[in-house]
């Protein structure tokens, strides 16, 4: 069995972040401005970036209540090519086990479209099996919508960077 694949089937991006925190592994969050076509970034972009952090922190502490507030009930989440519901996602977080995986968030760009925001970024992950690290990079696209006075995550997905 491909151990790297096995690791990826067992955990996802945010779970990996969650597992990193107790291990005091590196977490870097870099930013850049959106292109001219989308609305310029402002307070909303900062708020969304903060929510991306809260997302990671909520999972690091297995705080499903906090995550419940961040995720829309109709959240569409694609992990490893599979479609996962909010319920599936939160249930798995509850039973997640520590892992020796490491992830580094590299770049996140926020593009504003009125009450909708698109975040695009990359992250680097090392799945550990035995004593060997299996590095892999992913690019993600998240969709946030401003609802009832706050930003809520409605969709998230990632694709493997094959030429990195």
């Amino acid at each position: 069995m491909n151990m790297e694949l096995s690791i990826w089937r067992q955990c996802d991006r945010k779970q990996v972040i969650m597992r990193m925190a107790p291990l005091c592994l590196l977490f870097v969050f870099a930013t850049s401005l959106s292109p001219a076509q989308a609305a310029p970034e402002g307070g909303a972009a900062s708020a969304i970036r903060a929510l991306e952090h809260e997302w990671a922190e909520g999972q690091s502490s297995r705080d499903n209540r906090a995550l419940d507030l961040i995720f829309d009930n109709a959240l569409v989440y694609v992990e490893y090519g599979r479609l996962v519901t909010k319920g599936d996602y939160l249930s798995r977080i509850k039973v997640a086990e520590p892992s020796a995986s490491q992830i580094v968030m590299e770049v996140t760009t926020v593009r504003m479209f009125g009450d909708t925001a698109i975040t695009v970024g990359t992250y680097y992950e090392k799945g550990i099996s035995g004593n060997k690290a299996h590095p892999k990079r992913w690019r993600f696209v998240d969709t946030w919508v401003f609802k009832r006075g706050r930003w809520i995550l409605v969709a998230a997905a990632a694709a493997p960077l094959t030429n990195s």
Partner: protein
Amino acid sequence: MRTLILAALLAYAGPLAGQAQRTPDSGSKIVALENVWNQAAQAKDLKALNALLDDAFIYVGPDGKMLTKAEVLADVQASYGIQVSSEDMVVHFHGDTAVITGIYRTRGVDHGKPFVRLDRFVDTWHYQNGGWKSIASLATPLGP
């Protein structure tokens, strides 16, 4: 001829996309636009694609590569013999935003060998200036 057909499809999709609020057939409107998109890509109808994609549109492909709208159009123009269809599409509405998921089935020939690949996609559409525009799209290899 293909351009005329796509123009007719876009004309059909336009009125369909005229309401941002969710209605019983709202999902079919977005699905129709997705199908127009596929056909426009196959027909290399850049005018139709230009109408479907927001200027700030970004695309992330199954290899993780990110493309701007201009790069997508150039990629379509350079493509050859690719057939794309979408399956299992499900639409979620959030005010003037729609998120659609589904599976891309791509058929083509690579170095003389025919291939078929399946990818899961998530597309985000935004209602603006009287019509729907795609603002983001990601495709990733279909999982188990």
